[in-house]
């Protein structure tokens, strides 16, 4: 059965698997769109300068879920790639299976312990050993806006939810959609976690959405968050269900919609439309979350390899990823900020500079929290169960906030 299984899964997986030669890294990632592909090209060039070969293994689609499916079949067939883009608690799951290699030596040489914020480093370590290397930091709790629409409606960038709601009335009166949104579960969850963070603060956020404490999930704070979350739906247009996030962003760009709550990857859409931060588009921390920072970090996990050349290349890859040259070049294109806090942000745009400032502040204040909606906080099973409740509450007319909170608590109790 086992031999059969391996043989078959090998077939199901990618057919072209070359034998690893000295110094070759095969890198599985899902950065396939224009800007992302360019960003990953930088890493490829750097690695090839070191004399290694980069074997690209890009799997497009589904925000990485297709890539994960391919990765699983490769791993089960006993032939994982040398490095793979894996994020959040999934790193721990892979490490638990004993498939990941140890990066402690590179980490020690590169002084990762002081370079990386503790919260981020924690995600990269399994059992005290580094098994993955972080690439970037995206901030999720952002509010984006079209300055012309705001000016036309005569409103300022809101900093509290009440300001947002009163601005929205004026925006609607001026003939615009106040909030551009795409009604897909992960986008609903993105807004939900931001609302929870603003209503309950970072400690409550951690209790509820990271530790899945049933009491927190059923508390009045959660019910208040859910009610506020549902109110935001009234600011969206009715064509929203199923829309992709970048379509919502282009509504903001074209001036159909005034604002969008989304992570900073939307900057890619704004700059593709030729807009610059601060002039063509505005960014501000999502209302009520200026002091906190919801992070979404991409990372590469290194699989255990026997080949010495590949091992060497792996270590070089891990080292290069954290070097200033790559961190700056990559993150400028990707729209994120460097994961190390000691770099000069002069070359970055205004939003990224603010993100870095807030990132550092949130590390000091302990208000840096992992994003639940982007797979940084929970196992995919628990995350999926939360998504189900959040999105059906958001869309259904017949579910009360109390019922939703109770169902959230049930998820936590059912020990996924």
């Amino acid at each position, binding site marked *: 059965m086992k031999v*059969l*299984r391996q043989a*078959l899964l090998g077939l199901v997986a990618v057919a072209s698997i070359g034998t690893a030669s000295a110094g070759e890294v095969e890198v599985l990632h899902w950065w396939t769109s224009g800007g992302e592909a360019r960003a990953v090209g930088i890493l490829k060039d750097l690695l090839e300068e070191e004399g290694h070969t980069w074997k690209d293994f890009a799997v497009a689609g*589904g925000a990485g*879920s297709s890539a*994960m*499916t391919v990765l*699983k079949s490769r*791993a*089960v067939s006993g032939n994982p790639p040398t490095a793979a883009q894996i994020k959040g608690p*999934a790193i721990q*799951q892979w490490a638990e*299976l004993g498939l990941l290699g140890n990066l402690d030596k590179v980490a020690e040489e590169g002084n990762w312990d002081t370079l990386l914020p503790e919260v981020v480093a924690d995600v990269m370590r399994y059992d005290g050993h580094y098994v993955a290397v972080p690439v970037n930091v995206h901030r999720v709790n952002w509010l984006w806006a079209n300055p012309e629409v705001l000016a036309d409606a005569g409103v300022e960038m809101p900093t509290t939810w009440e300001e947002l709601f009163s601005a929205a009335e004026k925006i609607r009166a001026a003939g615009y959609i106040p909030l551009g949104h795409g*009604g*897909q*579960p992960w986008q609903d969850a993105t807004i939900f976690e931001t609302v929870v963070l603003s209503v309950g603060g970072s400690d409550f956020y951690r209790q509820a959405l990271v530790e899945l404490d049933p009491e927190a999930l059923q508390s009045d704070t959660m019910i208040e968050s859910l009610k506020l979350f549902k109110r935001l739906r009234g600011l969206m*247009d*009715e*064509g*929203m*269900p*199923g829309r992709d996030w970048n379509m919502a962003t282009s509504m903001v760009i074209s001036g159909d919609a005034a604002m969008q709550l989304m992570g900073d990857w939307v900057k890619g859409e704004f700059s593709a439309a030729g807009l610059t931060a601060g002039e063509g588009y505005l960014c501000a921390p999502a209302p009520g979350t200026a002091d906190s920072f919801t992070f979404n970090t991409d990372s590469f996990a290194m699989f255990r390899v026997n080949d010495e050349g590949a091992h060497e290349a792996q270590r070089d890859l891990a080292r290069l990823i954290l070097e200033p040259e790559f961190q700056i070049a990559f993150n400028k294109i990707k729209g994120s900020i460097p994961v190390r806090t000691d770099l000069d942000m002069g070359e970055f745009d205004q939003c990224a500079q603010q993100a870095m400032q807030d990132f550092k502040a949130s590390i000091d204040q302990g208000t840096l929290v992992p994003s639940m909606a982007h797979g940084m906080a929970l*196992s*995919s*099973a628990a*995350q*999926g169960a939360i998504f*189900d409740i959040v*999105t*059906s*509450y*958001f*869309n*259904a*007319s017949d579910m009360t906030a109390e019922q939703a909170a109770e*169902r959230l608590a049930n998820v936590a109790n059912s020990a996924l």
Partner: protein
Amino acid sequence: MSSTSTAGAPRHGALRRTPSGLLQDWLPRIVVAPSLVVSLVFVYGFMLWTFVLSLTNSRMLPSYDFIGFAQYARLMENERWWVASTNLVVFGGLFVALCLFLGVVLAILLDQRIRQEGALRTIYLYPMALSFIVTGVVWKWLLNPSLGIEAMVQGWGFETFSFDWLVDPNMAIYTLVIAAVWQASGFVMALFLAGLRGVDDSILKAAQLDGASLPRIYWRVVMPCLRPVLFSAVMILAHIAIKSFDLVMALTGGGPGYATDLPATFMYTHTFSRAQIGLGSASAMLMLGGVLAILIPYLYCELRGRKHG
């Protein structure tokens, strides 16, 4: 089906054992063997494996810690599974019924020896040539309240007109029915038209001589003759309904919320993106059960019919 008929080809090679005769004797078996092995492994082998996995606590990767039927119990407690199953009943029932009704009506109308029949037939059959993805995307735009039909009618001046089923969690499942019926009813029409053409003219003439009206002839005489066609049509439609995946993905993506989830999309989500292979396998086994519940009575009738015929 077709492979077994090849195997049963006449074996005149048995008479004279020349090398070419031997080859001829064995050729059918050699040709059929790989496809038999392939279907044994990839269809029945994987069915068995899925069943085994549904009894384990497999999460991200398959594991073999058996936990009995606990995954099935979890599935029964899962609200989303019940939404998906109810949706399948609503979607499947309406889809099969509407397709049959429209298909039969179209076939009877086309059977009236009208002009340009070929052209009309092609028009009705054409949607079947599209993939469900294309159908889904087109209907997604048509049904989108801010782009499609609603916006158009409102643009004509009927401000209060509302057709927002696609974004209404309680109605969204019916948009799947609309798109699927649009796609498949032409195919049902083609099946029935072929059947109608096969009905012996003399029966019709005899009925006409007896003074039966046209609707009566169709209802009492022609349709009973078409029972086998009806059967095939129901079988094909029912399994399209159970397997529906691409249409949901393209048209609604399972939304709003998970209001249009079907068992197939449920299975995919849990197995592949939520790292719950055990639960996903359990749902796959229940889907298989659903297919068998339709298939076994069908095979039973077919085989019994053969014996008598």
